[in-house]
């Protein structure tokens, strides 16, 4: 089969068959992470036909679905039962699938409170590099039997296997939400606020910092206690404008609508303290930034091919993942080569069917 | 835990030793509470490890000699007993085991010499006095002595208090609320008679008539702890007849002695005196336990505010389960803030003659203890056992902050008498 060809297997067996027959395979969900593109010479295996929720008992707070199921579909189903995936899976309005969300290892601003996609996945079935169907993890909220390959798939970018089925735990959706916008005269002041919130005992759903000096905070919980909580939070923040409900601001963040089209969006894991170093370096550039999850991830939008960004990250000993924009090698910045991941790769994909680890 | 101990072979105590082993589920909850484990970080020096080793010996699967170093290193602090959710009566295994094994273990001559020296002197006030005088003479040669003897000599006080007479009955102040007999013991009577005096004063002050029986002697604790059961019984027998029946309680103010006397019934298990021993044991109370139960007249507040850090004596907290009583008593003293030290439940390393036999472990524990206590920034350290007082004092001094160390009753006594704490030495 030629490069650029796309296969859409309609069931797991044909997917296994496809993996067995092609020397180079690259799995894809809905392709919403536009920058993540197939390596040279690979056949795209799209899992979009493998869709649907297989098992969902609301009383159990878990579900199992095929990898090609759009996240939005699941969210709507959960929403009807007052439940949700607390990590705000990104690009769900754009059509992101469950499998793609796990494989890209992406979580939205809500990951601040209870953790990201890797913290909610319970089990997977995937097709490994030999075309075998492998199951790991389970469908119950707690399970310590066998190696946790479900977590391993988080962020694996399809290089370790094609995920075909996933089980997740979900949480009861908060009945009320409020968002606060706090403006500070400069970045450092806003950054100070972010860090103060990070070690406080406020239960916050999301804490994002947007240069030059805005901190966005989201609180969620019960309608009867929310006003008091917001009031206490405002006292702590010494101000803050309350934006009732979920009025689209967070949707815009989850969907990366603030990123100009054609720009490259890069995810950079960082720590709250190092946010300042990063911002200092990025300030003189033409980039747009959003520091999310209390300062644990920087979303950097870059207008052109991000070679300079990669150098900059490397200087700061940071590593980034390309998410949106023109395709290219997925990782930027510091090169991590550890003996552990290469051995994992060797074990799961001995002939390199899913391409080398970039 | 499953075992194959031939219970009958071990006489009256066999069943009790086996029961302690059975109750142990090998969960390790006691590890954190064990001072030797905390210092050495090895399983044989933990309660769980020791129980296992004693089981192996009693089963006949291990030579007593092999287990000896680890069982010997046990402080007998019973921190593990407090920590154990399964209710393992560790003491009921350890004490008879030590007695059983002591005959089967051969020891090096310095060990034997040290044992002999301590056992032949400490329990006997007259001999102890003589020995201390002698020791003061050899002190200049201390640096040339083997480590253990050096440790021993270093504990010798600079001044020896003159032998003081003790009245045999002290009348209560005001109406008599109770009548008790008091143990004056052995080492404490020689080294720190002032504690005993404070006990008597505080009791009397609170309406207690105090009897001090004449023919009493060492309670036998030191011998009991090193497995010299026969000697312990010999010493204890004297007390069985010395203490009268017609008292409300037999009071001890040294926690080690108190816990030993409370175990008299067990010490004489299967012996003719068992019943008598049990009766005496049932009447034994630590002075703080007794005063707290009786209810005391609140002393006048201290002249200046002070902060006390209360350090549990292992034989009070872990062996006798007396935790709140001393704290409540100290709480009656106005102007005295009582704070808890870090690692309160951990032994200071004194533990009877332990600091003499295992100076390294004891010193490390002493240093840790001093660190923990000083972190609370105290004006005075309070505890309930003379051995702990000596050890803590030595290590506070070594740490460069010789905060005064007092017994709980001494604090009450000073308060009643409107006096402040002794100045820092």
């Amino acid at each position: 089969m030629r490069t650029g060809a796309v296969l859409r297997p309609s069931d797991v067996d044909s997917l296994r068959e496809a993996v067995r027959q092609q020397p180079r395979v690259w799995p894809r969900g809905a392709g919403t992470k536009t920058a993540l593109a197939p390596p040279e010479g690979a056949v795209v295996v799209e899992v979009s036909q493998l869709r649907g929720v297989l098992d969902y008992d609301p009383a159990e707070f878990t579900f199992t679905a095929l990898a090609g199921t759009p996240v939005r579909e699941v969210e709507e189903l959960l929403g009807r039962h007052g439940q949700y995936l607390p990590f705000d899976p990104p690009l769900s309005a754009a059509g992101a699938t469950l499998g793609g969300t796990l494989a890209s290892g992406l979580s939205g601003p809500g990951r601040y409170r209870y953790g990201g996609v890797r913290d909610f996945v319970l089990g997977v079935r995937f097709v490994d590099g030999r075309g075998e169907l492998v199951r790991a993890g389970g469908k119950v909220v707690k399970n310590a039997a066998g190696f946790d390959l479900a977590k391993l798939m988080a962020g694996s970018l399809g290089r370790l296997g094609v995920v075909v089925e996933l089980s997740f735990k979900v949480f009861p959706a908060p009945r009320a939400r409020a968002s606060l916008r706090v403006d500070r005269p400069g970045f450092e002041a806003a950054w100070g606020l972010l860090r103060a919130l990070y070690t406080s005992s406020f239960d916050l759903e999301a804490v994002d910092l947007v240069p030059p000096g805005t901190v966005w905070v989201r609180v969620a919980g019960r309608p009867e206690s929310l006003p008091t909580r917001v009031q206490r939070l405002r006292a702590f923040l010494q101000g803050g404008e309350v934006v009732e409900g979920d009025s689209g601001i967070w949707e815009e963040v989850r969907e990366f609508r603030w990123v100009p089209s054609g720009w490259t969006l890069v995810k950079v894991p960082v720590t709250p303290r190092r946010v300042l170093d990063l911002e200092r370096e990025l300030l003189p550039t033409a980039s747009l930034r959003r520091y999310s999850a209390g300062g644990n991830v920087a979303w950097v939008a870059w207008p052109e091919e991000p070679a300079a960004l990669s150098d900059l990250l490397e200087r700061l000993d940071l590593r980034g993942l390309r998410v949106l924009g023109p395709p290219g090698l997925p990782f930027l910045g510091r090169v991590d080569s550890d003996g552990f991941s290469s051995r994992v790769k060797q074990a799961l994909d001995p002939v390199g069917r899913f391409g080398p680890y970039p | 835990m499953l075992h194959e101990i031939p219970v009958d072979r071990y006489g009256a105590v066999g069943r009790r030793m086996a029961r302690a082993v059975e109750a142990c589920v090998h969960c390790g909850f006691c590890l954190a509470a064990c001072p030797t484990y905390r210092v050495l970080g090895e399983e044989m020096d933990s309660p769980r490890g020791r129980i296992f080793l004693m089981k192996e010996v009693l089963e006949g699967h291990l030579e007593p000699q092999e287990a000896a170093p680890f069982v010997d290193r046990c402080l007998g602090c019973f921190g593990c007993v407090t920590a154990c959710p399964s209710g393992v009566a560790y003491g009921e295994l350890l004490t008879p085991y030590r007695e059983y094994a002591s005959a089967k273990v051969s020891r090096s001559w310095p060990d034997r010499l040290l044992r002999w020296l301590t056992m032949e002197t400490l329990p006997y006030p007259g001999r102890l006095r003589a020995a201390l005088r002698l020791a003061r003479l050899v002190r200049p040669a201390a640096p040339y002595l083997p480590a253990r003897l050096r440790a021993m000599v270093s504990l010798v006080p600079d001044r020896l208090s003159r032998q003081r007479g003790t009245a045999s009955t002290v009348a209560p102040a005001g109406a008599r609320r109770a009548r008790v007999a008091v143990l004056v013991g052995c080492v404490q009577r020689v080294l720190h008679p002032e504690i005993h005096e404070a006990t008597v004063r505080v009791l009397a002050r609170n309406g207690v008539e105090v009897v001090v029986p004449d023919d009493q002697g060492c309670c036998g604790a030191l011998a009991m702890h090193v497995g010299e059961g026969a000697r312990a019984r010999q010493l204890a027998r004297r007390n069985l007849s010395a203490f009268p029946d017609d008292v409300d309680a037999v009071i001890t103010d040294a926690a080690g002695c108190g816990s030993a006397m409370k175990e008299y019934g067990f010490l004489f298990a299967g012996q003719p005196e068992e019943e008598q021993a049990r009766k005496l044991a049932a009447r034994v109370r630590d002075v703080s336990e007794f005063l707290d139960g009786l209810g005391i007249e609140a002393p006048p507040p201290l002249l200046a505010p002070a902060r006390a850090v209360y350090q549990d004596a292992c034989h009070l907290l872990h062996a006798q389960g007396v935790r709140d009583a001393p704290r409540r008593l100290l709480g009656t003293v106005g102007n005295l803030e009582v704070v808890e030290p870090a690692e309160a439940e951990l032994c200071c390393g004194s533990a009877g003659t332990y600091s003499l036999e295992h100076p390294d472990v004891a010193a490390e524990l002493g240093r840790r203890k001093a660190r923990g206590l000083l972190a609370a920034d105290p004006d005075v350290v309070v505890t309930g056992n003379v051995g702990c007082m000596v050890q803590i004092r030595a290590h506070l001094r070594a740490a460069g902050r010789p905060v005064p160390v007092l017994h709980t009753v001494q604090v009450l006594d000073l308060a009643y008498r409107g006096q402040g704490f002794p100045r820092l030495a």
Partner: protein
Amino acid sequence: MTEAVDRARVLQGLRALYPEGRILTRPAELAAYESDALTAFRARPLAVVLPETREEVVATVRWCHRHGVPFVARGSGTSLSGGSLPVPEGIVIALNRLNRILRLDPEERIAVVEPGVVNLDVSRAAAPFGLYYAPDPSSQPVCTIGGNVAFNSGGAHCLKYGMTSNHVLALEVVLADGEVVRFGGESLEGVGPDLVGLFVGSEGLFGIALEVTLRLVPKPEAYRTVLAAYRSLEAAGDAVAQVVASGLLPGAVEIMDRLSIEAAEAAVHAGYPEDAAALLLVELEGEEPEVEAELVELLEVVRASGAYEVRLARDEADRQRIWKGRKGAFSAVGRLSPDYLVQDGVVPRTRLGIALAEIERLSRKYGLRVANVFHAGDGNLHPLILYDGRQPGQLQRAEELAGEILRLCIRLGGSITGEHGVGMEKRQYLAEMFSEQDLEVMRRLRRAMDPGEIANRGKMFPVPQQLEAAAAS
């Protein structure tokens, strides 16, 4: 490895790495390391070494790799699945002296620790900064972070914020062939496959964790602890489903049955209602106003679920006592029986009532008492099967009963272990949960890290006879 390892050669080799006193070979020294908290298994290793630096651990592993000598890493030996059981032809690497907290960074909410650090000591060190380490196995005053990492240990308070795996950010590991690798980072987020997630819970089969970076979390502002007493265990089990269904997200939901209440009460006098057939313990945590509002609803749900007595922890001391009783319950059951087996199966939470009723039936069928004290909110059962090893055949009956319970969990769509790991004990049941194909991939991963299978040899994977048995059943 060859038939018989030349013991003398092993000792000689290790003596070159360790000074006198840190290599244990005498019978008493070895005997003490024969078992972990599952004493039904015993094995005497050739030697135990006590490294004090990570370099020593690395040198030891390399030496073992070169000479084909198996090793077992050991923390505090509190494994309930035989995880730290020694291998007779191998050595034990006891990590208890690697117990330094290397870095505590309260502003980044991070602690970097050596593997022998005791779980609770991390929280103690973080306490002055208003932070703590969240996963709280009942054994937390003694178990080590290294052991927690190996088993992905959980605890009562893992309902909301997850298990060990959700709190480990980075690891430095010496793989079984001696290569030292680092992965993960200090951020809560990462890029690339989640290697930390793979290592946590790998039961020591890949190598030894040398350094662990942990996430700390701020202490909740408030707790509300509710104790509810029920007339039957099943009713308490069903109440859990109702609490979960109500949309509340408590920090902990635990159940104790009559036997465990009796044992725990004897141990700590926590003030549990002693006539209850089962006790439900629910703890809310979070911001004061929120917790206060949740409490109103929780009390309604609990009362409606058939509880005949409901009480709230009066103050922090009372709360601590309640938890002390709960956390000491396994060990306290030692008061009721000379031996027991702890099982750790998981069932879907809506099936708790069914599972508990079935366990009660099995208990009668086998004529063995079963005590239950468990993480109900997660559906994580802990049946303690009481037996007397001196009675011929009792251990075997207890093991059969345990097996039936595990199969029940699998049948109900759950798992054979929620947090104690497979270890030695549940090896055969792994093959009933996973296909040979699934296991083969796991084996390949293992061999990629440990070609000689020297790290924790014999653990987790079913041995061949067991595979056959599983296929036949």
